[in-house]
């Protein structure tokens, strides 16, 4: 009886998570049709992160996992953040082929510094 109630509870949680995921997907789709400027990208990524968190927390059971498994899960993300962070330091501060996000004032000193002496 206790088992049965536990199963119903789990199934209900999974069902609600599934509905939440589909609603978030529609929210993400809808937001891309609004002109939010740079916030379009932010909303897309924030919603995707929420969806991924639901999958990891409830479907992949990080909620019930011990510290070791949680640590491994975080380690993957941590290493990736280092990869993105360190690489961006390079790509976002180049004088040659500057990124569109770099401000024009940033470029002359960089170009002067990279000019051969």
């Amino acid at each position, binding site marked *: 009886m206790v*088992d*049965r109630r*536990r*199963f119903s509870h*789990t*199934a209900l949680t*999974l*069902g609600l*998570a*599934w509905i939440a*995921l*589909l609603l978030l*997907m529609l929210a*993400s*789709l809808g*937001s*891309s*049709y*609004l*002109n939010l400027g740079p916030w*379009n*990208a932010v909303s*897309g*990524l924030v*919603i*995707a992160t929420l*969806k*991924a968190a639901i*999958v*990891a927390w*409830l*479907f*992949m059971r990080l909620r019930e996992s*011990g510290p*070791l*498994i949680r640590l*491994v*899960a975080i*380690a*993957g*993300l941590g*290493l*990736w953040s280092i*990869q*993105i962070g360190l*690489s*961006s330091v390079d*790509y*976002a501060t180049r004088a040659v*082929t*500057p*990124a*569109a*996000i770099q401000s024009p004032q940033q470029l002359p000193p960089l170009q002067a510094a990279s000019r051969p002496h």
Partner: protein
Amino acid sequence: MSSAALTEPKDEPDIGKLGMWVFLASEVLFFGGLFLAYLYGRTHWPQGWSTASRHTDVVLGTVNTALLLTSSAVVALAVACEEDATQRRWTARLLALTAALGTAFLVVKGFEWHAEWDEHLVPGPSFALDVPGAQEFFVLYFVMTGLHGVHMIAGIAVLAVLARGRSRRREWAGARQIEVAALYWHFVDIVWIFLYPLLYLVQRHG
């Protein structure tokens, strides 16, 4: 500390599950490089990125997202059924349904790739869009969706084999194996969760 505590740790982690999580952490870095390349492209050719993204099929992309999210919920339910003696009869069927949803995803993706080939969106000399960066977007689009597709094929194969093994009550298709396979499937789902806004929804307005 007594010797019993050393030989019989109370909370011994499930090695299979831990191994899969370590593998998934390495997969984060595997896909991570491509996401980094994407970030570079999007910040350097924002115009090319938004133009190219508008040429992806948002309807099929959304259908596929729904298919994959549903398949993830179904395989999570399969794991829950396997752990409850009164619900075990559903496990094999739910695993088969997950594999079927995954196959449907790949069929839809196949139609999409075919349409993109016809519209000259495959990078090369006859590429259709004349905007700087658009070609780079589609290089990443095909590499990322292709690599994701390869992961899908592996996942579908594992789930189909487990479904068959479970229905025949094979020992190698037990709760632990099913849970580990489900973890892999959820990861493939998470990769797509990020690919969906990054590839299909860059800029749909205007």
